C-alpha cells in the first residue's frame, strides 16, 4: 500500500533508530538485576576457577601450595601427561568405564521404560523402587557394594559358591582383571533408572494414534517399536546418553571409595588420577593440565548436549 510506505518512510526518518546493542542494554538494565545474583555467584565459583586452572596448567607449582613460588614452564605439563605411560592405560580405563556404563545403563533403562510403559497394578511402586539407587548417595552405594564384593564375607561370592559357579569366593575388586567390570556394575546399578525415567517421559510423547495406525497397517510389535516408537525417542535418547556420558566421565565417588584407582591402577580413570596428582602428590600444575584436557573433551560433549537440547526448538510448534 503506497500510502503506508510513505508514512513508514516518514516514521523512520523522524525517529532515531534505537536498536543498538548497547542502547538496548542500557534501556533494559533493570532486567539484568534479576540475573545479577546468579551471575555473581557463578562468576566467583565457575569463571574464576576455570581461568585459574588454565593458568596453573602452564606452571610448575610447589608442593606447599604457595602459589607465588610457581614457575612458568610452558607446555611441559601437557607434554609430560601425553607422553607418560600411565596416560594410555588410564585413558583406556576411562573409555571402557564411560562407554560400558553408559551403554548398559541406557539399555537397561530402555528395557525398563518399555516394560513399564503399559499400565499395570503396582507400576508406580515398581518405578519408585527402581529409582531408589539413583536417589541415594554414591557413597552409600559404594560401601554397600564393597561389602557385597568382600573377598571373604561378600554375599555375591558366597552365592556363586552356593550355586556351584566356583568353589572359592571370588576376589572381585582386588583383582586387576575383574575390578573395572565390577565397578561398572555398581555404576549401572546406580544410574540405569535415570535412563529409565527419561525414556518413560519420552515414551509419553509418542502419539497413541500413530501406534494404532501402524497396528491397523499390519505392523507387529517389533515393527511398531522400530518404526514409530524409536524415532520418537531419538531426541530424548540423545540427551540421556550425553547426560550419562558426562556423569560417568565425571564419576569420582564409586572408583575412589571402592578402590582409589587400585589395584595397580587397574581402575584408575582420569578423574581419580587427577585427584591423586593434585591432592595426593600436591602437584597442582600437572593436575591442572590434566583437567584442561578433560575439560576440552567435556566441552565437545557439551556442544553436542546443547545441540541435542535445542535442536527441537526450531521445529517446535508454539
Amino acid at each position, binding site marked *: 500500500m503506497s500510502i503506508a510506505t510513505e508514512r513508514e518512510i516518514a516514521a523512520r526518518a523522524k525517529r532515531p533508530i534505537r536498536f543498538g546493542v548497547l542502547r538496548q*542494554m542500557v534501556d533494559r538494565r533493570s532486567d539484568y538485576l534479576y*540475573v545479577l545474583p546468579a551471575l555473581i555467584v*557463578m562468576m566467583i565459583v565457575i569463571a574464576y576457577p576455570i581461568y585459574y586452572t588454565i593458568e596453573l596448567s602452564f606452571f610448575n607449582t610447589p608442593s606447599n601450595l604457595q602459589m607465588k613460588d610457581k614457575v612458568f614452564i610452558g607446555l611441559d605439563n601437557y607434554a609430560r601427561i601425553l607422553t607418560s605411560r600411565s596416560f594410555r592405560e588410564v585413558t583406556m580405563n576411562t573409555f571402557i568405564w564411560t562407554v560400558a556404563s553408559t551403554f548398559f545403563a541406557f539399555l537397561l533403562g530402555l528395557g525398563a521404560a518399555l*516394560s513399564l510403559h503399559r499400565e499395570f497394578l503396582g507400576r508406580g511402586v515398581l518405578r519408585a523402587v527402581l529409582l531408589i539407587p539413583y536417589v541415594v548417595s554414591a557413597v552409600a552405594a559404594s560401601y*554397600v557394594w564393597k561389602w557385597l564384593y568382600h573377598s571373604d564375607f561378600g554375599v555375591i561370592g558366597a552365592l556363586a559358591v552356593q550355586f556351584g559357579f566356583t568353589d572359592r569366593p571370588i576376589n572381585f575388586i582386588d583383582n586387576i582383571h575383574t575390578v573395572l567390570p565390577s565397578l561398572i556394575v555398581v555404576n549401572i546399578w546406580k544410574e540405569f533408572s535415570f535412563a529409565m525415567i527419561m525414556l518413560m*517421559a519420552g515414551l509419553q510423547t509418542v502419539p497413541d494414534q500413530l501406534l494404532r495406525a501402524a497396528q491397523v497397517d499390519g505392523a507387529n510389535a517389533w515393527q511398531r517399536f522400530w518404526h514409530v516408537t524409536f524415532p520418537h525417542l531419538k531426541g530424548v535418547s540423545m540427551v540421556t546418553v550425553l547426560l550419562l556420558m558426562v556423569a560417568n566421565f565425571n564419576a569420582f565417588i564409586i572408583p575412589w571409595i571402592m578402590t582409589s584407582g587400585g589395584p595397580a591402577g587397574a581402575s584408575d580413570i582420569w578423574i581419580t588420577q587427577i*585427584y591423586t596428582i593434585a591432592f595426593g602428590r600436591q602437584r597442582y600444575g600437572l593436575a591442572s593440565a590434566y583437567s584442561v584436557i*578433560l575439560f576440552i573433551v567435556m566441552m565437545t560433549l557439551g556442544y553436542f548436549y546443547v545441540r541435542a537440547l535445542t535442536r527441537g526448538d526450531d521445529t517446535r510448534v508454539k
Partner: protein
Amino acid sequence: MSMVSTAPSRRRRVKIDPWRWVGRIFLLFLLTFTVLPMLWMVLTSIKSQFAAMQYPPQWWPAEPTLQNYAKLLDPNGSTGQEFLRYFWNSFYVSMVTTILGVIVAVPAAYAFSRFTFPGRTFLFFSVLLRNMFPSVVFLMPLFLLMRWMGLVNTHGSLILTYLTFGLPLSIWLLKGFFDNIPIQLEQAARIDGATRFQAFFFIVMPLSTPGIIATSIFSFIGAWNEYVYAYTFLSKQDSMTLPVGIQRFFTEFATDWPGLMAATFLMSVPVVVLFLVLQKYFVRALTEGAVKH
C-alpha cells in the same frame, strides 16, 4: 494374567503377547538387581559384627539386633555423638543450600523466561554448560580460593559451592515452569495496580510452587549426597558431613561392616523419604527440559 482376566464365556481368546512376558521377566530381573543389595545392607545392619563375618554367611540373621542403630543414635555415647553431629551438619548444609538456591534461582529463571535482553541466550547456555564441567576441574582452584577466603573447614565453603553447582539446573527447571504461566496474568495484575514485583510475588510465585518444590528437592538431595568437595574442603571432624564422616569413622580400624551398613541406611533415609513423598516433582524435575511436550 491376561488369560485369567478373559471371561471364559468369551469365544475368542485374547492372544498372548510374548513381548509382555519378556517385559515382565525383565522387570523381575531388574527388581532383584535393584533390591538385593539394599536388602543385604539392611540384613547386615541387624547382625552383630561376629555374625556378619562368617563364611558361609548367615543368609538370615540368627540373632537380629538393633545394637548398631542404638549405638549410632545414642546421644551420650561417643559414636552416637559424632554420628549425630555429621547428620546435623549434612542437614544444615543441605537446607541452607536449598533455601539460598531458591532465592537466587527464582529471579534469574524468571528473567530468562520473560525478558529478551541482549546476551540472554548466551547467558542461558553458559548457565547450562556448567553441567558439563567435571568437579575436579573446580576442585583445586576452589580449594585455593576457599583457603584464601578463609572458608576451608567451614560449611560456608560447601554452601557456596553447592549453591553454584545447583543453580544451572534450578534455573533451567524453574524457567520451564515460568514459561507455562501466561504473561497476560502478570499484565492483568499490573493493570490491577500491582508493581512488577507485586505481580511476580502475588501471581506468578504461587503458580510456580510445584516448580519451586521440584527445584528444592533436587538441590537438597544433591547437597545431601555430595562427597568430593566435602572430602576436600573439610578436614576437621566436627564440621564434616555424613558422606565424609562415616568413611573416616568406620574405616579407622578394621571395618565394622554392620555398623557401616547401619550408618549407610540412616544416611539414605532422609533422601529416600523425601523422594518417595515428593516423587511426582522429582521425576518432573529430572525430565524437564530434556523431554519437550
